[in-house]
C-alpha cells in the first residue's frame, strides 16, 4: 500500500498524526501532513485507511 499526501489541500487538523503517529506527522511551521513512510507495512494498513477517511480535507489517498 502506498500513500499520497497533498499538502496544498491539507488543513492541518492532525487527525492523521493522531490516528497513526508511526506514519503521519505534522510540520512544525505550517502543521501540514508529513509522511514518515510512504510504503505502509501490512499491520498498519487498516489504521491508515481509517486515517484517510478521517482526514477532513481529502488530502490523503492510498493505492
Amino acid at each position, binding site marked *: 500500500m502506498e500513500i499520497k499526501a497533498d499538502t496544498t489541500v491539507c*488543513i*492541518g*487538523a*492532525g487527525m492523521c*498524526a*493522531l490516528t497513526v*503517529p508511526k506514519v503521519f506527522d505534522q510540520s512544525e511551521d505550517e502543521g501540514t501532513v508529513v509522511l514518515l513512510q510512504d510504503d505502509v507495512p501490512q499491520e498498519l494498513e487498516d489504521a491508515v485507511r481509517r486515517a484517510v477517511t478521517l482526514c*477532513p480535507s481529502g488530502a490523503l489517498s492510498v493505492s
Partner: protein
Amino acid sequence: MPELTMPTTRQRPLDPPDEITALRQQAAIHRMTYADGHQGWLVTGHAAARAVLASPCFSNRPEHAHPPIPSARMELATRPERLRVPPGFFLRMDPPDHTRFRRLLTGQFTVRRMKTLEPRIAEITEACLDAMEAAGPPVDLVQEFALPIPSLVICELLGVPYEEREQFQAGTKVLASLESKADDAVAALGEISAYLYGLVGRKREKPADDLLSGLIESGELSDEELTGVGVLLLIAGHETTANMLGLGTYALLTNPDQLAAMRDDPSVVDNGVEELLRHLTIIHLGPIRTALEDVEIEGVTIRAGESVTIHLPAANRDAARFTDAERLDVTRPAGGHLTFGHGIHQCLGQQLARAEMRIAYPALLRRLPGLRLAVTPEEVPMRSDMSIYGVHRLPVTW
C-alpha cells in the same frame, strides 16, 4: 409548500429532539422553512453532512446564510455590519482568504504541540480541583471546574492575562446566547475586539512566548487581522470545551456505569472522550452552509443560493454510521463523529480540546470518587437557549 421548521425542544436532555430523530430515520436531507421564510434544507444523515461540509460548492460567508431558527438576534443577520466578515475572523471566510489564516495558525495547534502543553493543563486542572475542594461541597461544577480550565488554558496559549478576563468573559456569554438583543451582541463583540486590539498593541511593544506574539512576529497580519484571529480563538476556546466538561460530567453522573469505566480504566479515557463528543454534540443548531452553485448531495439537488443547516447531533446518531448509535458507551471506538465539523473549517482547536478533556475528566473522577449531583437530574438547567449546548449550572457534592 414544505411546512417543516427546525425542531429545537428536547424531550430528554442528552438526546436530540424526537422529531429530529424521526426525520433522520426517514431521509438524510429535508426541505425546511427558515426563520425568514427562505426555503432551504436540513441535513440529518452522517454521510450527507460530510458531503456538504467537504464540498467546495458551499460557502460559510455570513452574507449568504439564512437563520434556521428565530431569535432576538435574527435582525442582526441582515445588518450591514454583520454581513462584513471582520478582518481575521477566518471561520466565516471561504478560500482563498480562509486558507491564508488557517495556514498561519495550524502550526500552533499540532498534535505534537498539544502534547507539550499537557503538563501545564494537568497543573491547571489540579489547581482548580484544589480550589473546588476548598470551596465545597456543594459547589457549581461549571464555575469551579468546567469553565476555568479551558479559560485558563486558552488565555495562557494566546497570551491573555487571566486577571483581565472580566473584560471579555461577560461579552462571550452575551454572544453565545440566542436571547441576546442585536444591539447587545454588537456591543459585546465590540468590547472584546477593543480589548484584544489593545492587547495586540501591548504585545507589539513587549512580545512574550505566546501565540499572539508569535503571530505578530511572523509579520504576516495587520493589527486588525490579529484582533479578529484573537477574538475567534478566545470565544471558541471559552465556550466549547467548557460545555463539554460540564455536560460530559452531567452525562457521566447520570450514567454511573459509564462513569466507573472512565474513572477506573485509563485505557478507556481516549475513546471515552470521543464517545462523549459524539453522543453529546454540543454544537446543536448548526452549522449552516449556502450553495454557491447547483450541487447534488445524495441524489438531492441543492440550488445556488439555498442554505443548508447541518444537524450535527442527528448525524452523530446515524445508525448507518454508528452501531447502537443512541447508546452512550465510553468503550466503543467513536472516531468519525462530526462534532468538530468536517472539511476545511474542521475545528482548529480540536487537539487542544481533546488534551483538556483527557486530563480533566479522570482527574476529577479520581480526586472526588464520591462525586454526585446535589440536585435531581431534572433540576439541572440545560442550555437549550444557547448556540452551544450544555448545562448552565451543575450543582455537585461528594
